């Protein structure tokens, strides 16, 4: 993983910690296949909207409203891939 991608992943983890109120150690254990949407009851529509808006701010990216899709949040890996694709391209 490039330094840039590692930085994006760390930002995604930190944002999930803030929004879900989970411990940093629990978030540190998230890997590619960790399920998010459906597995974490806190991740409702409002949390999804908050997460996307906060990632835009922290990563300096723009997310189109059409891209709001729970598939993005199916796993931690899918969310990181989406964010890396936005931030590094």
């Amino acid at each position, binding site marked *: 993983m490039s330094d840039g991608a590692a930085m994006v992943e760390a930002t995604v983890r930190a944002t999930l910690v803030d929004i879900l109120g989970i411990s940093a150690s629990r978030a540190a254990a998230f890997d590619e296949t960790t399920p998010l949407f459906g597995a974490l009851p806190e991740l409702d529509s409002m949390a*999804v909207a908050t997460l996307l*808006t906060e990632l835009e701010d922290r990563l300096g990216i723009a997310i189109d409203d059409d891209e709001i899709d729970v598939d993005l949040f199916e796993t931690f890996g899918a969310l990181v891939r989406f964010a890396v694709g936005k931030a590094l391209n």
Partner: protein
Amino acid sequence: MAEHCLRFPGSNDQPAVLIVPPLFDEANRMRRTLVLMMRTLSALGTSSLLPDLPGQNDSLVDTEAVSLNDWRCALAAVAAQENRPILVASWRGGALIDDAVSNALGWWRMAPIAGATIVKAMIRTRIACDKESGRQSGAEAIRASAAEGPVELAGNFLSAAMLDGLDAATPSLVEPLRQLSPSDVGGSALWLRAEPSEDATMAEAMAADIHSWAAICAAR
């Protein structure tokens, strides 16, 4: 209609701290920690007041009946009733209206946010909700529907005037201003939490910071 105002006492020769909470859902997520902070301020000898904005918290006014300008007027009216110097402390969207207290000794802001960002997150909540229920919706259609009546966004009914006001609002330049982010007080962005939480350490650190900033502003 008189709104509720939570007050904690302090020394009468110190400035009082007027607290402008975050707006909408973020206010609910911060309230418990804000009240903890007020209690600490009181122990330090600084009085504080946390008024309900019309349409927020315990207010009986419908949110759809208020605009950002109404909130500014409400804050100015609360400040005008205090017969002592005031320091204004605001969180997040509260910074969009905190300059309404024009004769404050000073201002303190935690992580101020643009009104357009608040609207964007609320509209996205609505879009995400609609998608879950199998309905397609878009930001433009949602905004356009405000012309016909209040729009329901993330559980809040907002008028076109409120949406327009928020879209255009950014924190005003105020002076003297002390502006902090959560990491400055060893805290986290509690206002983002999906489930409201509390952070007593952050509350105490914010109280200590506001208490000393009030003293600095009073001595100017």
